[in-house]
């Protein structure tokens, strides 16, 4: 290696970006070469001067406030208003369709949960496409360990999971994507016997509901019904 090569490496060395073997070679060279050592010392002096003269800055409070404010009440406000109006119409429609019974109340809660999840920052608590990351994330947060599968190879990638509070208990919500659409899967243990699947459509949202021997599932999305049923089929087979 030439002297110029060593000099070129000094920056990477001081930045901690040099491979260990190269770093050792450079150190050996620096111990012998006055010129390179002087170069290094000038760089160290520069670093100290930068520290002294070029401070990191603190965002002004007014800017911080503007961003927090804007986020909640400007961008957030519009989607919130749209989502809220959808929620009222959708929930109202749901109740018209099903006059009584626990299932209707749950349908309301599930649909509201889905709409709320679409607001900025609400979609996932754990963001991962890895079922082996999402499933353990629920440990200690739920009294059951929900089955989690990724269907990325079928065009329905797992995006993450979050906790929801439905029917007086914390439940697992799994989030899947399909192009620009989000699919929420809410599931919790059930001992009420198998049922479904049944499909309902309200204000552009499809809600599928079915119960296995172990779990009751709610699947909500604005995805087309045919695709959502395809996804549902994957979910049922994956068990």
């Amino acid at each position, binding site marked *: 290696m030439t002297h110029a090569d060593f000099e*070129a490496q000094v*920056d990477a060395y001081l930045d901690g970006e040099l491979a260990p073997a190269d770093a050792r070679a450079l150190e050996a060279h620096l111990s012998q070469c006055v010129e390179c050592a002087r170069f290094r010392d000038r760089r160290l002096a520069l670093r100290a001067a*930068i520290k002294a003269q070029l401070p990191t*800055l603190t965002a002004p409070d007014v800017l911080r406030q503007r961003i927090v404010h804007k986020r909640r009440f400007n961008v957030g406000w519009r989607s919130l208003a749209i989502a809220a109006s959808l929620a009222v119409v959708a929930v109202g429609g749901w109740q018209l369709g099903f006059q009584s019974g626990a299932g209707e109340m749950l349908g309301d809660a599930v649909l509201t949960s889905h709409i709320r999840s679409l607001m900025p920052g609400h979609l996932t608590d754990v963001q991962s496409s890895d079922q082996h990351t999402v499933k353990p994330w629920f440990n200690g947060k739920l009294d059951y360990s929900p089955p989690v599968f990724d269907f990325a190879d079928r065009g329905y990638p797992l995006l993450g999971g979050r906790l929801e509070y439905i029917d007086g208990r914390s439940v697992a919500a799994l989030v899947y994507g399909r192009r620009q659409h989000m699919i929420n899967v809410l599931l919790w243990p059930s001992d009420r016997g198998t049922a479904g699947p049944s499909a309902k459509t309200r204000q552009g949202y499809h809600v599928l509901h079915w119960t296995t021997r172990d779990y009751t599932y709610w699947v909500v999305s604005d995805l087309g019904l045919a695709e959502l049923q395809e996804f549902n089929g994957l979910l049922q087979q994956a068990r």
Partner: protein
Amino acid sequence: MEFAAVVLPHLDAAYTLARYLTRNEADAQDIVQDASLRALKYFDGFRGTTASDGRAWFLTIVRNAVYTWGQRQGSEGRVTEFNEELHSDDVTRDPAATVDLRAALDALPLEFREVIVLRELQGLSYKEISDVTGVPVGTVMSRLSRARKRLQEALS
């Protein structure tokens, strides 16, 4: 991760970058605000898991917002691509213009200023700087080296 948890902890870093790149207080504030709105808009695309992922992601958006702003400014904006050769080491300068480091930094081309701020002030790795600026690691290294040489000359 929530949007707030990803972006809000890095507002100072974002502001520092924008302030040094624009050299202007009001523009820096506008850019960081604009970048935070863009970050919110594109948050679904964020796939990171750690705080430094969030920092690099948000700083990328800030940096791009600066370049967009620069194009609107016209004077600062570069119509042509940054020419690595033109900014090689042997450019003559008026020594009086570089009395202190801040002035020397402000006098550097945007492409040099950003690597100095990202590396020296914010401690990003070469790989992270490469991600934020969209140039190869080798280019990051050579820009850093030449930028430091210029600053060095201001000191001596």
